[in-house]
């Protein structure tokens, strides 16, 4: 029975080291992804430097599933810019174009009205009850560039969470069973 105990010991010690090193490398991957994300947030000055287009209200320019790169600077907001904003009470940000701007003389504060290119009417229906204009603090960033189709991954994972669990399970399985 002694050799069973030896074998089990050696297997256990090997396994523990392997498991720890794999957990550490997984942690490194996750942390470096986080570092890149936070770094992007700093560079672009926006809370979410990349957004996925969720609706068809800006077609044919932006289709559902496209990714937009945002940038926020202190430059004043002008008509024609495509902005991403949050309405009080709604968590999903909206990506539409500015069609009206009224900027105050003294304070530089600005009233902004937006509209989706593919929508018939302006966004007053989307704003909070009684709200007629957006202010600067509602706006998270300006769209400066975009990549088509890449956002479908995020949309699929949000709308069918099963795929998310499947992917994470498969990744976990791969990490555990790989010999590296």
């Amino acid at each position, binding site marked *: 029975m002694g050799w069973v105990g030896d074998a089990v010991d050696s297997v256990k010690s090997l396994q523990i080291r392997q498991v720890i090193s794999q957990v550490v490398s997984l942690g490194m991957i996750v942390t470096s992804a986080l570092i890149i994300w936070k770094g992007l947030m700093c560079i672009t000055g926006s809370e979410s430097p990349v957004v996925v287009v969720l609706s068809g209200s800006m077609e*044919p320019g*932006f289709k559902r599933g496209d990714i937009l790169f945002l940038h926020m600077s202190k430059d004043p907001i002008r*008509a024609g810019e*495509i902005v991403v904003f949050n309405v009080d009470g709604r968590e999903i940000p909206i990506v539409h174009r500015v*069609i009206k701007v009224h*900027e105050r003389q003294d304070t530089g504060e600005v009233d902004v009205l937006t509209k989706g290119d593919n929508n018939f009417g*302006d966004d007053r229906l989307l704003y909070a009850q009684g709200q007629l204009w957006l202010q600067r603090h509602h706006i998270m960033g300006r769209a400066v560039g*975009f*990549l088509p189709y890449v956002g479908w991954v995020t949309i699929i994972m949000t709308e069918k969470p099963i795929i998310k669990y499947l992917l994470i399970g498969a990744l976990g399985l791969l990490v555990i069973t790989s010999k590296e």
Partner: protein
Amino acid sequence: MHSFVYRANALLTFAVMVLAFMCAMASLSDNLNSLSPSAQLQVLNVNWFQKSTQGNDEVSMTLNISANLQSLFTWNTKQVFAFLTAEYETPKNSLNQVSLWDGIIPSKEHAKFSIHTTNKYRFTDQGCNLLGKQYNLTLHWHVMPKTGKMFADKLVMTGFRLPEEYR
């Protein structure tokens, strides 16, 4: 080292990097384009000029917009979004920009156009400052690529003036 998983991983990484490189090149190639757009704007008629129920001035006008934006199109252009704004200053607001019309130009063939239209969106002020107001009409265009960086520019035409009286 030669298992299926390693090979699939290497292939996928390489494919993604090549795609990203191609997108970046496509976007950079847009900078090589030399731009020469031209446009004419005319206000044919001020249809009516009233105070709305909220007490703000509102104008309706008929416009003639003719433009040639063909030089903006490259092989990487998906569409050009053109819109016309009226810009003016009031005592309360240092800048007011009100979009009067916009249109989507899907291809180079459609980029040379001449449109006769009333303003698509209401020309409304925050207040009653529009009587006799001098304003600029600016044609903006926003070039949206198939992939990459978007860029926008404009053409400002000054010298327009609203009527001195309501009608």
